[in-house]
């Protein structure tokens, strides 16, 4: 009905202003520099060229490295946890999933902030260590603290997305596998794990993307000098006031993320095609 389809029109107008225009502005800023009074914008590629300085490339490399490590750790911990949760009685599953979900609803800054008092030099871990006569360890403002903070914040996404797939897995497939003579481990390797890959992949997206772009966790747990790409962008906008360069960095980051999304999507599709005889769409 025409009448109802008209309802989308106000939102199209709103969306143009609040989604399309901001995107265009970022692109505009990224490709220009502050000009003169007649032409406030001057086209340039300098902002991008500037980024290829080793200093900034190292920041990018570090961000990717930290995000990657966080993602791998999240899979290694998240998969078994999701697997075990998917295997208990249904009402306990609901309870455990609720328990995994609750921290996600609590302000991320508060949760990250909580770690400071645990990790700091005179924090809980170190007071405990010195109490039992062991040497203290510096943990705050290290890569360890940053990765820990990221795993702490993003691991629930991994657990939930793997769990969703495992919980919906057709139990008949496992029975069929046993019936055909596969033992538990073979069944897991040949049936359960391949079918749960879509969950792992969506988990990777949910962990890797925020991990690459966050600037709060490195700031809290890595200290003021700890620079990841998110911090670099923040600095450009908030401290330095280099909006053009900041926009260029954002654009580069957005591109990297788009590319990694396309790659995972493609991988996802391959997995699904391989699975088409098995489970079909799993979520």
């Amino acid at each position, binding site marked *: *009905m025409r009448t*109802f389809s*008209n*309802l*989308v029109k*106000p939102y199209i107008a*709103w*969306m143009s202003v*609040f*989604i*399309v*225009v*901001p995107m265009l502005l970022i692109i505009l800023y990224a490709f220009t520099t502050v000009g003169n009074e007649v032409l406030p914008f001057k086209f340039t590629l300098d902002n991008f060229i500037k980024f290829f300085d080793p200093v900034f490339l190292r920041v990018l490399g570090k961000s990717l490295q930290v995000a990657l490590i966080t993602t791998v750790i999240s899979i290694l911990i998240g998969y*078994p*946890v999701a*697997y*075990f949760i*998917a*295997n*208990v009685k249904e009402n306990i599953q*609901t309870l455990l999933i*609720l*328990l*995994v979900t609750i*921290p996600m*609803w*609590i*302000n991320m*800054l*508060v*949760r990250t*902030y*909580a770690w*400071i*008092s*645990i990790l*700091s030099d005179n*924090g809980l871990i170190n*007071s405990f260590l010195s109490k039992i006569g062991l040497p203290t360890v510096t943990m705050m403002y290290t890569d360890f603290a940053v990765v820990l903070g990221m795993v*702490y914040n993003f691991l629930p996404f991994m657990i939930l997305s793997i769990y969703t797939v*495992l919980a919906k897995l057709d*139990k008949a497939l*496992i029975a069929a596998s046993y019936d055909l003579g596969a033992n*538990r*481990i073979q069944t*897991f390797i040949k049936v359960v794990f391949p079918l749960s890959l879509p969950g792992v992949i969506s988990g990777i997206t949910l962990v890797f*993307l*925020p991990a690459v*772009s966050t*600037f*709060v966790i490195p*700031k*809290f747990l890595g200290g003021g000098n700890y620079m990841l790409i*998110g911090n670099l*962008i923040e600095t450009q*906008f908030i401290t330095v006031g280099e909006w053009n360069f900041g*926009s260029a960095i954002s654009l580069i980051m*957005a591109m990297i*993320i788009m590319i990694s*999304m396309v790659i995972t999507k493609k991988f996802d599709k391959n997995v699904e095609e391989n699975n088409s005889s098995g489970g079909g769409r799993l979520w």
Partner: protein
Amino acid sequence: MVGIKKSRWLPVVVVGTILLFFYLPILILMIFSFNDSRSLTVWAGFSTQWYTQLFRSRDMMEAVMTSVSVALISTLISTFVGTLAAIGLSKSRKVVKEVVLQVNSLPILNPEIVTAIGFMLLFSAFTIQRGYTTMLLAHIAFSIPYVILSILPKLRLLDPNLAEAALDLGATPWQALIKVIVPQILPGIVSGALIAFTMSFDDFVISYFVTGNGVKNISILVYTMSRRINPTINALSTILVAIITIALVLINVLPMMKKKEKVSYE
């Protein structure tokens, strides 16, 4: 039961450890909100002084008010606009639908910081003074896509003839919307509103870039205070955690109890 289940204790240990990992920091945070000293690591006895200070602190109370009012207003507006937009989309031509959904998904796929600087550039381009209004506008803007995405699947399940049946029986399009379509997609609207509320209430990155003039929400306050660590933050966090836990438990337990009631009634 899926696959391997040899040992009974391994799952308990693994899941238990992870839950401990999730809750221990929060628990410690809550415990030290009752500490008698300023220290966040050395226990000096029980006290509620940080709670008293929290309620006396104008900064804190203002931040709470900002967070709550922005979340409430942005939820109300984004749910309303998002619901109408979703209904409109479900009846739109395929091309319109695809384009709108594509654009709509941008803020969801983009890193928050990119969305945030987009808003910042937008407000500065239109020379809008950054402050409460810009924060509110930004929150409405980033919530609507989530509202739409949580309502659309419900609309897809809706019999397309239902709205027509209402019109056929004499309802005006608006009446059909209110009396037939909205009640049918209500679960989607409610979950959309919940998502919008929590997204807004917990937001830091976007608020941080679009605010100004000393307007702060709770997240921004925590961020700016992190260098001068202060147990009032623990006190505030404890209250928030308590509220969220109670709300989540109610949301998850009430439907279960209702279901049980129904079963016993039948």
